[in-house]
């Protein structure tokens, strides 16, 4: 790092020299063990849109070992070209080699915009790369736009605890960097056979140059219910009364192709395993649709799901806290409402079987379900 630290002011001087040298959009493609993080393709979609607006190329940067297949995939999702670093030293994510790869690609291609996913790895990489490149970084964005005239990235993110949205621009430095929250941007449609250039590059870095060693990968244990990645969550609470009634929730989730969630009370009552718990102690979720059934809305539950796009609450108590944050509230006996909803969804979705409302439901299927519900996202 000593050499890099010496380089930084030099880089800084170069960068401030001529902003117009910088053209193009670059996205950092995240992968672990040869599997692309979903946010990578979401970034390709968002980057594609920005590149088209600016009339420039979209480049993906991919670092890893034996990941060439992902480079091809990136082209099919919409990249014009992919810079590929494929070597053993990049097999596991480590800050220094990955930062070096990204920084090298930026210095070679001089893009005006660089996007990364706001994942654990992306956040680590973005900060290190922005420091190295001596430019600004807007973290955790939920909206991206461009001012085509000034060629500025308009990076928007929530602030003040989500009460306000701030749009941040980086006028004086290039590239303009941003990390983007996962599951906010839409995954683009993959176009098999779509081609492009793969630029193979190699880092002049050997294993012995990297002082960080990955000793062991410890997988998170527990049931994989993927609450955090779910687009639709159907959650049940104490209002269901007993374990048998929880089947109502499971059935509705099945029909919608959603994942089953639960409040702490339902988990503690033993109706469902803690892997399904949504809330402060549990998983924090941000699905497109969250159905809260028989959940009163204790604060510790609300904070775990309040950022869902659409919240539908079904509860017999009109004073229940859940209605304060619900997009749609149904005050009524859940034992009447839920079976009726399930039946109606089953009927309306029956015609769409070809599209497969299943676990793999992507953004478009969700819109289909939303349509079936009569729920728009135009609130």
């Amino acid at each position, binding site marked *: 790092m000593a050499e890099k630290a010496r380089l930084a002011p030099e880089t800084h001087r170069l960068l401030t020299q001529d902003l117009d040298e910088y053209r193009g959009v670059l996205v950092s493609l995240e992968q672990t063990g040869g599997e692309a993080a979903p946010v990578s393709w979401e970034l390709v979609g968002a980057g594609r849109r920005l590149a088209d607006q600016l009339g420039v190329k979209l480049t993906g940067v991919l670092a890893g070992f034996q990941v060439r297949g992902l480079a091809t995939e990136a082209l099919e999702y919409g990249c014009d070209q992919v810079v590929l670093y494929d070597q053993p030293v990049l097999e596991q994510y480590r800050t220094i080699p990955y930062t070096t790869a990204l920084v090298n690609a930026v210095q070679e291609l001089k893009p005006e915009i660089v996007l990364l996913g706001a994942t654990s790895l992306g956040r680590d990489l973005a900060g290190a790369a922005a420091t190295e490149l001596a430019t600004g970084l807007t973290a955790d964005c939920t909206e991206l736009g461009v001012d085509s005239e000034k060629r500025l990235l308009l990076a928007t993110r929530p602030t*003040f*605890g*989500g*009460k306000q949205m701030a749009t941040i621009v980086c006028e004086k430095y290039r590239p303009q960097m941003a990390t983007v929250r996962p599951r906010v941007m839409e995954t683009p449609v993959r176009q098999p056979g779509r081609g492009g250039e793969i630029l193979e590059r190699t880092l002049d870095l050997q294993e012995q140059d990297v002082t960080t060693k990955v000793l062991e990968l410890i997988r998170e244990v527990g049931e994989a219910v993927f609450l955090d990645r779910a687009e639709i969550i159907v959650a049940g609470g*104490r209002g269901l009364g007993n374990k048998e009634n929880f089947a109502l929730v499971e059935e509705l989730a099945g029909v919608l192709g959603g994942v089953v969630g639960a409040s702490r*009370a339902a988990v*503690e*009552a033993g109706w469902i395993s*803690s892997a399904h718990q949504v809330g*402060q*102690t*549990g998983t*924090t979720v941000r699905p497109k649709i969250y159905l809260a059934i028989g959940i009163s*809305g*204790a*604060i*510790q539950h*609300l*904070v775990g799901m309040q950022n869902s796009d659409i919240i539908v609450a079904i509860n017999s108590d009109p004073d229940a*806290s859940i209605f304060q944050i619900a997009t749609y509230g149904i005050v009524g006996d859940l034992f009447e409402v839920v079976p009726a909803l399930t039946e109606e969804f089953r009927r309306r979705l029956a015609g769409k079987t070809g599209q497969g409302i299943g676990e793999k439901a992507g953004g478009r299927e969700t819109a289909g379900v939303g349509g079936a519900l009569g729920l728009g996202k135009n609130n």
Partner: protein
Amino acid sequence: MTLKTLVFVVVLAVGVGAFARTVYRLYRYLRLGRPEERRGNGWERLRAVLVIVLGQRRVLAEPSGITHFFIFWGFIVLAFGTLQFIGEGLSEGFVLPLLSAGSMKYFSLIQELFAVLVLVAIAWAAYRRYVQRPDRLDANWEAAIILILITALIGTDFITEGAAVVASGGHAAAGAPITTVVSRLLAGLGTTPAAAVIVREVFWWMHVLVLLGFLIYIPRSKHLHLLAAPFNVFFQTLGPRGALKPLNLNIEDEDLEDMAFGVSRVEEFSWKQLLDTYACTECGRCQENCPAWLSGKPLSPKKLHQKLRDHLTARGEVLLGAAAGVSASEVADEQLPVALIGDVITEEEIWACTTCGACQEVCPVLNEHVGKIVDLRRHLVLMESQYPQAAQATIRNIENSSNPWGLARSARADWAEGLGVKTLADGPGEILYWVGCAGSYDDRNKAVSRAFAELMQAAGVDFRILGSQEACCGDAVRRVGNEYLFQMLAEENIGTLNGAGVKQIVTQCPHCFNTLKNEYPQFGGHFEVLHHSEFIAALLAAGRLKPVRELPQRVVYHDSCYLGRYNGVYAAPREVLVSVPGVTLAEMERSRGRSFCCGAGGGRMWMEEEGTKISSLRADQALAADPEVIGTACPSCLTMFTDEINARDAGDRVRPLDIAEVVRKAI
């Protein structure tokens, strides 16, 4: 000097020497601990020794303590007899100072009386430990050895004295009824005066050996408490009980000993914390009152001290043996690869504690368990960044948004909407109402804030709130071990309060109350802090509040740990409740100082709980009092009770209400 005297001197020297050597060793282990200033307030400390050691006040807090009282005082009285015995052994005709041949018979009478009392007490103690077998006592050999030694000590003395009577051809000893009885028994068995001389000699030597054996065994067993407890009481923590010790986190401070925050090696505890482990009597009262232990968690406060003491003696030996100039701790880590955290005390034990302080409340020797647990947590959190997973989100939220739920700081005063509550921007006012996180954001507790604010308005109190300037007080943060974040929060809040010239504060949260009152002075925040129970009681007493509406309900009051045990506020909330016409106050079996934690303290509110929930046990205890209302004076307790009552679908029978809500209904 006769041969017998010579042998006696040698045996005595060996015994006393072995005793002194062990005690010196134990003293050196203590000195391995971190330094801690415990001097000053000598009279107050001596007074505590008089009351707690000589008066046995803590011991007598339980009926079974009477046994100990008699054994303790019996020992002191018999110790003079032993001194007389040793003196006689060294020089014939020896008499203790202040005694004379004339007063000797009264001295023997007292000796015999106490010997009998001790024997009776020992028998009862043995019955309790080995027949009744309460969970808190270990029916092990160590205790048995002690009981046998004491019995043997007294028994050999009686036989020696009785045989002496027979040997001298007499029939009775003046002022010694037991000795007389023993001598008659011996004579009755056909013991001739000549044989009695031999019996006397044999039992005299047996008495000597038992005595010295006892002396040698004391510092190696739980009876070390005989030596350690008086010092432990003398060096007790003075000042507010609810305040944890601050850590010096200024890494640029040259006085900072090293960069190891918290405790991961036994020698990183202070010498006083290590002395606690010597003072532990293994009576198990702590365990019997520990909500973690009683709900089936792996933590036992008694075992905590036992394990620490055993680990200290093992590791202390290695540490003392390390060569000069090397890091003794590192040598010890290598030679005795037993990790304090993990091998001796598990992380499950460390995180099971609710810091409720029930253990400390009942400890007869004033041991402090909570500070040690927090020190271990401090190491995990500050040095290794290891929290229980569930607590991580909470700590992050507090760090980012100054409240546990990560909600907008600007929404902090939303609870007061429409009440016309003023903030400090409208001038200083009479008193500052510190709302706390739960009272600001949690719907159930927002209702309490509203009720309390309305009470103050009804009483004409010109109060202010901080609104969005209020930040989490840091109670839970400090108790999960994140001293760094706690000090940041404390400094921010103290800056706000001092900046606004706040003098008097009232809050409905015992955790905020304790932190502001007892811990903020450590960082330059000196305020007069009242709990809302105290404030409402004062308003009632002054006639500023007049509950008139009848509320014919049976209310059982639950003592919050941080209000009751840590701050001694027991009367005020009860006064507030009974001020309401129609209210009848019921008590749970565990109440006041012996109250049972709701399970939320010490950051446990923000962690998952395996197995039987503490809150569930407490709810059962409350329901056993057959109440219509469970009166609380703490937002966390209210949350726990509300959840429990909801989980039982008992909401139509019993309602958990804050005391302010109860009074509000009557105004």
